């Protein structure tokens, strides 16, 4: 460890030149990505970036503040429907619509945060679960939002440019994702983030040191909902068509799984979790494309695991990953990384 000379080093973005180098390398890779890979993988990258936004936001709530949420698909849906309907019904341009939809989701987050002041653990899980289910049911019954038929996304025009393909949309999604990740990282290093962790670790002590529980708990919910809302707005344009079915209970669980698999209470963890699980999710859907075992997995899945015969192998894999994480590495992928780093730094001892 090198000596610290300055208090700013505790909070600065890149603790060393090496970190800065890798960050720059990552940024260049992300810039070149659409030129290096075929169309489908650009779509995959968009999907991953959106999940990263949700999971980083969810982690601020679950990992840092210690409040569970099984209702994030609800905020995601509010963001998606909000963005599209503000654009089609109120003629908002894209960015104001996206931000407003995020803020609407944040308002709902704030409201959901109020009962959370009195609920903990499994009770909070049930309350948020109820919220998620209710939102999609209500949206399914509002005709102006397309009801069960769903909604088509309008043309996306930003400063005179039409963004119609995944490739064109890629830079927008990535830029927003990078920005929001930095925002979340900064929050965890400053006053608000410390208050979140204080509430998680010892809420009575936090209160006696002057942390306003009501303010910070609802703030965590609203902030987390804002992330999910913005991600939902982007998601609507990646899919170009949304319906209530998309935002079911499983999506909420999927978000939570990504956060836990990556490592709660860290910034890098949920990103890794989102990348791994989103990728698996998309790849395992085309189960027959998996070399060698594809046919066999499909047969296994239809004959033992799914009544309808729809292959659902990705859910089984997620379940297995979650169990393995809980058993072997409660800190998730991040914990694995720390352990590897320690091993190599102290090698050969």
């Amino acid at each position, binding site marked *: 460890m090198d000596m610290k000379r*300055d*208090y*700013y080093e*505790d*909070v*600065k973005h890149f603790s060393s030149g090496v970190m800065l180098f890798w960050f720059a390398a990552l940024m260049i890779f992300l810039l070149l990505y659409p030129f290096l890979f075929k169309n489908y993988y650009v779509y995959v990258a968009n999907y991953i970036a959106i999940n990263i936004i949700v999971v980083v936001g969810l982690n601020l709530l679950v990992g840092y503040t210690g409040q569970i949420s099984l209702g994030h698909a609800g905020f995601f849906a509010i963001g998606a429907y909000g963005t599209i309907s503000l654009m089609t019904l109120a003629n908002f341009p894209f960015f104001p619509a996206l931000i407003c939809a995020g803020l609407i989701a944040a308002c709902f987050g704030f409201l959901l945060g109020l009962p959370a002041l009195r609920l903990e653990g499994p009770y909070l899980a049930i309350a948020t679960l109820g919220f998620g289910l209710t939102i999609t049911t209500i949206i399914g019954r509002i005709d102006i939002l397309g009801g069960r038929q769903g909604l088509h996304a309008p043309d996306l025009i930003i400063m005179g440019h039409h963004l119609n393909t995944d490739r064109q949309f890629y830079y927008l999604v990535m830029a927003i994702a990078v920005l929001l990740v930095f*925002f*979340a990282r*900064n*929050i965890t*290093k*400053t*006053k*608000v*983030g*410390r*208050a979140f*962790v*204080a509430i*998680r*670790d*010892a809420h*009575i*002590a*936090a*209160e*006696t*040191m*002057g*942390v*306003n*529980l009501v303010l910070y708990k609802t*703030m965590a919910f609203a*902030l987390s909902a804002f992330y999910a809302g913005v991600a939902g707005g982007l998601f609507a344009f990646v899919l170009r068509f949304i319906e209530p079915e998309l935002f079911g209970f499983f999506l909420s669980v999927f978000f939570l799984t990504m956060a836990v698999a990556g490592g709660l*209470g860290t910034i890098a963890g949920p990103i890794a979790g989102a990348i791994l699980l989103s990728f698996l999710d998309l790849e395992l859907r085309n189960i027959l494309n998996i070399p060698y075992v594809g046919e066999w997995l499909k047969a296994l899945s239809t004959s033992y695991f799914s009544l309808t015969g729809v292959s659902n192998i990705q859910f089984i894999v997620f379940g297995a990953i979650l169990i393995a994480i809980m058993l072997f590495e409660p800190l998730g992928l991040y914990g694995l990384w720390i352990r590897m780093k320690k091993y190599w730094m102290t090698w050969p001892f």
Partner: protein
Amino acid sequence: MTFFAVEDLSMTFGGLKALDKVSFEITRGEIFAVIGPNGAGKTTLFNCINGIYPPTGGDIVFKNNNIRGLKPDRVAKAGIARTFQNIELFSNMNTMENIMIGRHLFMKTGLLRGGLMWGRRSFAGKEEIENRRKVEQIIDLLELQTFRSKFVGGLPYGIQKKIELGRALAAEPELLLLDEPCAGMNAEEKQDVVFWIKDIQDELGITILLIEHDMNMVMDISNRILVLNFGRPIAMGVPDEVSVHPEVLKAYLGEDDADDASGP
């Protein structure tokens, strides 16, 4: 002006009177100790002052304002900080960050300015540097440099107690409530704590309200002592008065042995 006064404070849990009309006053700058056998209501008294429990009767006056029934964060804002009997640290934060929570009330960075922190010249950056410098002074004072960047969860008990004290000091309180600062410490560590408490009184000018079981220490450092038994105040005064007060001896030593000459 009354600096701090508790007037007829009562707290009942169901049928149990944990505090029964407790009254006392503390003048600015003194060390005031509350002692009493286990279950006498000492920690309940602290929890009422702090706003963790809403008292069922009476008033708590701090600098001429009635703070009874305020939420803990408002009490903290008024200028009262505390430590806990069973350590209540944020175990997944390091020492620095734990004490930084003590600076919470002095920092103005919100969601937006915090999230957009960029460089040492940004508002949030400047505020972090400034407050970390203050925390460093406390770390120096309490000789915690070795543990600066260690997670507090795994540190020894005595060190954790010190960090808690540091966190309370970081809030720059006018009144500091210490709930058994020496519990579980060896003689040497106790000596250190005694020195720090005196330093805090002398150099920082902080008034201290203290709960402690170690009689030597209490008699040594307190200016005045209040004795509670079963929620009732039974004696109050300077250490020499209290240590020979018959009610106090009875509460501590038991009734029969005190005046039974034929006893063993």
